[in-house]
């Protein structure tokens, strides 16, 4: 009986956990996280070590084969995955936070604050961000994961700000916000309990998209050789492969497998997002 009450109250959670897309997405995502955490412990090599002969196709010893020089591609991939997750978490969080704050302020206060913030947002929106990132990164001689995440996060927020703004606008006009205002509740509490709390599910979905978006942006930078100056990243692995003409030489495992892992990771995030979309918008559920 209690269980039933629980599901009745958390109907959306129930739908989320019975949604095929969400389940598949979460499973793959979890698998990837486990791979990033425990992967390095599973492989006997380190990412920069010459682990064996070069030009080895995938085998039991080298799951993803070896590079031309004999580095273990699997090892490089799992280490790269770590850095990818780190970028996704940090940059995704930064972008979501900035987007939410700007969207909140614009939507809640309206008037010239709204006009000004939306002007800035629209400018960022039309700016080709990769170009901006390139120019920023190109002039930074030393770049860590943190630096990359921050510059990616600082440029990825505009669409979030727009989305959050329109959500705030629609919630702001709900009667309960006005009721809270005339109940002598502080603006901070209204923002937290009436607006933010009701936007939580929405913001969560935004975060998922930011996570995948920032990962892709960061990998693009890495591929240009503008990623972290130390360590290994998925983009760097692929850049090496292209620079060394891996595909022309037939080392497809080097050029393709690390990117495939990344693509699957992004697909899983999309699955979670669309699944949740179906949960929160019953109109899409019918299909």
């Amino acid at each position, binding site marked *: 009986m209690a269980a039933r009450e629980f599901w009745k109250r958390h109907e959306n959670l129930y739908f989320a956990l019975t949604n095929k897309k969400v389940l598949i997405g979460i499973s793959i995502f979890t698998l990837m996280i486990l791979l990033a955490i425990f992967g390095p412990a599973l492989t006997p090599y380190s990412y920069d070590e010459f682990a064996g002969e070069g030009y080895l196709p995938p085998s039991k010893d080298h799951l993803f084969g070896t590079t031309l020089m004999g580095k273990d591609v699997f090892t490089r991939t799992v280490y790269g995955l770590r850095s990818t997750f780190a970028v996704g978490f940090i940059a995704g969080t930064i972008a979501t936070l900035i987007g939410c704050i700007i969207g909140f302020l614009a939507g809640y206060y309206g008037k010239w604050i709204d006009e000004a913030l939306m002007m800035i947002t629209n*400018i960022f929106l*039309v*700016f*080709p961000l*990769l*170009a901006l990132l390139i*120019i920023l990164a190109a002039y*930074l001689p030393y770049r860590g994961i943190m630096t990359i995440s921050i510059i990616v996060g600082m440029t990825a927020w505009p669409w979030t700000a727009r989305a959050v703004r329109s959500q705030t606008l629609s919630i702001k006009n709900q009667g309960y916000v006005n009721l809270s205002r005339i109940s002598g509740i502080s603006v901070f509490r209204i923002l937290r309990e009436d607006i933010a709390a009701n936007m939580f599910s929405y913001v969560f979905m935004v975060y998922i998209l930011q996570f995948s978006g920032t990962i892709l942006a960061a990998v693009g930078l890495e591929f*240009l050789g503008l990623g972290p100056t130390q360590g290994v990243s998925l983009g760097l692995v692929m850049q090496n492969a292209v620079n060394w003409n891996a595909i022309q030489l037939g080392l497809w495992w080097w050029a*393709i497998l690390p990117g495939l892992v990344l693509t699957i990771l992004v697909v899983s995030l999309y699955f979670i997002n669309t699944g949740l979309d179906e949960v929160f918008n019953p109109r899409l559920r019918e299909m």
Partner: protein
Amino acid sequence: MGKYLSKKLLIYLITFFIAVTINWAIPRFMPGDPISILLSRFSGLEGGREIIEGQFVQSFGLNQPLLTQYFNFWRSLFAGDLGISIYVFPKPVINVIKEAIIYDIILLVPAIILSWIVGNKLGAYSGVNRKADNIMMPFFYFLTSAPYFWFAVVVAFIFGVKLAFFPISNAYSSTVQPGFNLPFIFDFLKHWFLPFLTLFLVQLGGWAIGMRNMIIYERSSNYSKYMESLGASDRLIRNYGFRNGILPQVTGLAIRLGTVVSGALLTEIVFSYPGLGYLMLRAILNQDYFLIQGCFLFIVIMVLAANFIVDIIYMIIDPRVRLSYSGEV
């Protein structure tokens, strides 16, 4: 209508202004003293002394106050002076870029337009046909999740290496004579095809998913219900839904232009296709800051121009904007 366009134009002007300002500011204020790196690189080249005299003392004007430097920067910009390239020394950056940008245009314009059209059609079909939906959707998700350059590698490997149908680097073979002759055009198209295919396919997924959701959404809208109540056929209702679903897709095009252009830059690198992306990589590897900045500026201009075109199209197809009932896009 005028209000809508002027508001957009204002945003683009401000964006351009900011881009130029960034270009001016970055070498001056970034850590690591990039200007001294530039100076030292030039001084090693033949004729580098004159460049240093000309560029740095006059237009760069490093010994002048910042504000004057800033105005001088704008002045030389309008004179078309973006500096001298190191990578292809001593060519002016503007000429280097002019030669490269044509490749971006012939790659991007067909890829964007075709992908948008085909993607929308497929998405609309997927939105009304459950069976097709189940088969196509995972594929679309895969496409839209793939990084451009990785997908380029996959395409190059399959079509260029395994099947060996198409060449996978450069814009044309060194054996053909560039010009309006058939062998050259054929050779050119062969080189063009794979980068085009990459850009076409990766975008396709996003458009298809977007249109599919729009069609489902429009299908449950009130006008659809009304039309069905009055005996309109599925075909007509679908056409109406498509017509309305197109609007957000055009807006989506504007929003995604930046990403697509970025994707094209990376794709060019994989295929050594000599557009701005490939040029930029060379510039980065050679620490050719003038060229990096020139590329940056032109990418911004390209995206802004494309945005403006999309805005005009949007205005034409959405009566609400045309009649000034809504300024939002």
